[in-house]
């Protein structure tokens, strides 16, 4: 508890500190490349029919995903707390890469925990982290994916908390992480709202984003929560289908429980052990959803839907062929859901999709699935 209290204190102090905000804004602008563009997807509109579709281009951030918005903030906090070492978990590798990147930039020792299964399916990102000077530690316990990497990172943190800050990558874990990570990611929605108003002279009707832990979606949604007319859909990973039991859809397939210091919806068995998850995308392959999502769902503010592995692959190909954009398999779930659900939406709906990351890391896996022989 003491490290969490220390973190909360440092975070609260940073929010009131103009110097902190200026430094963070400077790095996001000059290093990360913010603001990211808002791109209209006209050929996708043509294929789906009757919608106006925009993409918020978090894939164009330095390192290729939204994750770096949060790692910049937390690494600056680590410096302020006098920590010389940062650790992180990673699933798809995007958060690990983003952490290793800012650790290099800010001269922090860096250790990344990654499940062995994820290391195999995201080999490119493993190499990137190592090139950036991070030590990548394989996690071979449990399901050998994101959940187990978080277990190992938390064990490291409680052991070395005096010198180490744990850069948790999503709106998960114990307070203050869910709120702090949301706040660092909220830049996505602040930019997107202003850009959308400037381009369209109105707000979108519908926001769509994939939900693993849920940081890119909350990052986009938060700035629109008070806009009652803007509807929001979070898309969870249905893997091979909810009925198959091989999925990572916590709302339709899970129940309230406690994991990693958070009370939220989790996938668990009848006696309270955490269940195995499956998704084609490592970044969505996690048994708990951020607690604020559970709250916003209960409030009826956000609707949660799912997309299967196959639908995500469909979304991946649609965006590649129609817009010249390779999306991360995570983000492809949002596109895949829209491609399935568009006919149920009102004609002329204005849709804004959060394209949380780029798909270079997934190319080998997708090519193999599609049977491309090298």
């Amino acid at each position: 508890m003491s490290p969490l209290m220390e973190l909360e204190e440092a975070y609260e102090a940073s929010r009131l500190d103009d110097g902190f905000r200026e430094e963070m804004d400077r790095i996001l602008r000059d290093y990360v490349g913010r603001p990211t563009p808002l791109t209209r997807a006209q050929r996708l509109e043509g294929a789906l029919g009757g919608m106006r579709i925009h993409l918020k281009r978090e894939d164009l951030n330095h390192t290729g995903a939204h994750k770096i918005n949060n790692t910049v903030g937390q690494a600056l906090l680590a410096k302020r707390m006098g920590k010389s070492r940062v650790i992180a978990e990673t699933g798809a590798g995007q958060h690990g890469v983003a952490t290793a990147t800012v650790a290099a930039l800010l001269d922090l020792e860096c250790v990344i925990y990654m499940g062995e299964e994820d290391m195999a399916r995201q080999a490119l990102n493993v190499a990137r982290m190592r090139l950036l000077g991070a030590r990548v530690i394989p996690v071979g316990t449990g399901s050998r994916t994101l959940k187990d990497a978080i277990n190992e990172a938390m064990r490291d943190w409680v052991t070395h908390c005096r010198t180490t800050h744990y850069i948790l990558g999503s709106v998960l874990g114990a307070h203050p992480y869910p709120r702090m990570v949301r706040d660092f990611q909220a830049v996505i929605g602040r930019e997107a709202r202003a850009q959308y108003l400037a381009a369209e002279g109105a707000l979108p009707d519908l926001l769509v984003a994939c939900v693993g832990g849920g940081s890119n979606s909350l990052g986009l949604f938060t700035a629109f929560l008070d806009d009652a007319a803007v509807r929001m859909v979070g898309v969870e990973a249905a893997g091979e289908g909810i009925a198959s039991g091989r999925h990572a859809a916590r709302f339709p397939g899970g129940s309230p429980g406690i994991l990693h210091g958070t009370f939220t919806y989790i996938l668990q068995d009848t006696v309270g052990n955490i269940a195995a998850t499956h998704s084609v995308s490592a970044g969505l392959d996690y048994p708990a959803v951020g607690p604020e999502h559970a709250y916003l769902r209960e409030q009826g503010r956000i609707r949660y839907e799912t997309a299967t592995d196959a639908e995500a692959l469909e979304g991946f190909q649609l965006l590649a062929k129609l817009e010249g954009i390779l999306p991360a398999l995570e983000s492809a779930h949002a596109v895949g859901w829209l491609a399935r659900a568009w006919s149920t939406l009102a004609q002329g709906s204005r849709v804004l999709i959060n394209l949380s990351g780029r798909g270079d890391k997934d190319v080998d896996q997708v090519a193999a699935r599609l049977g491309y022989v090298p």
Partner: protein
Amino acid sequence: MSRIPEAFEVAKAAGKVALIPYLTAGDPSADRTVELAGLLQDSGADLLELGVPFSDPLADGAINQRSATRALAKGMSLSGVLQLALRIRRSRSIPLLLFTYFNPVHRMGVAEFAARARDAGVDGVLVTDLPVEEGEDYRQILDAAGMEAIFLAAPTSGAARIRSIGKATGTFVYYVSRTGVTGEQELLPEEARDRVLEIQRLTGKKVAVGFGISRREHVEEVAGFAEGVVIGSALMKVVEETGEGDSLPERLVKRFRELLPRERPR
């Protein structure tokens, strides 16, 4: 009523530190855990800490993680642990302290858990991932059922937190000897003594020291300033090495005896 206070009094009267061995329930089997519990009491154990295996044991090091995985593979669950506790209780008076994570308890329902644990003869419960700040409802339910909620204090816990822990915890505060997870270690941190004395002073409660107590010298050292000492991974390592082998009871008892203080410093 909890048997824990009396166990500490008896140890104190004998001039010794209360010995608290830990066993993961169901590793290598439920029958063996029941048998080992009896043997440990006969070998000088004052309390028994019974671990509820969990899929994601965040507070545990590698030895206890693997032990939990084996127990889960054998089908052990919280319900199974409570049945096992009852089997121990039918023939043994040793106080039983459950060491668990919160999700299985939440899944069963705290009230139902408390009723069933009480009926099984459990005396106290330690939920590793339920901090005192979040544990008041749970503590009251346990209290109403006549069981003790035991809370953890860490080397990094400040005075205000230690006071809150002292108010909420039962007979003793469980002091984690080092920052980190369960498992064996070479040396006890030098600060352990001062920290334990501070906790005793701030809370007026007894203190048991755990996490990393894996040598006789550790036990002897802790006996010099704390009222209780928990021995976990050092025993579970023997279980891991011996597995279902017939020599397990003999080897486990031998290991336990090797860890007991030669002299009784108190």
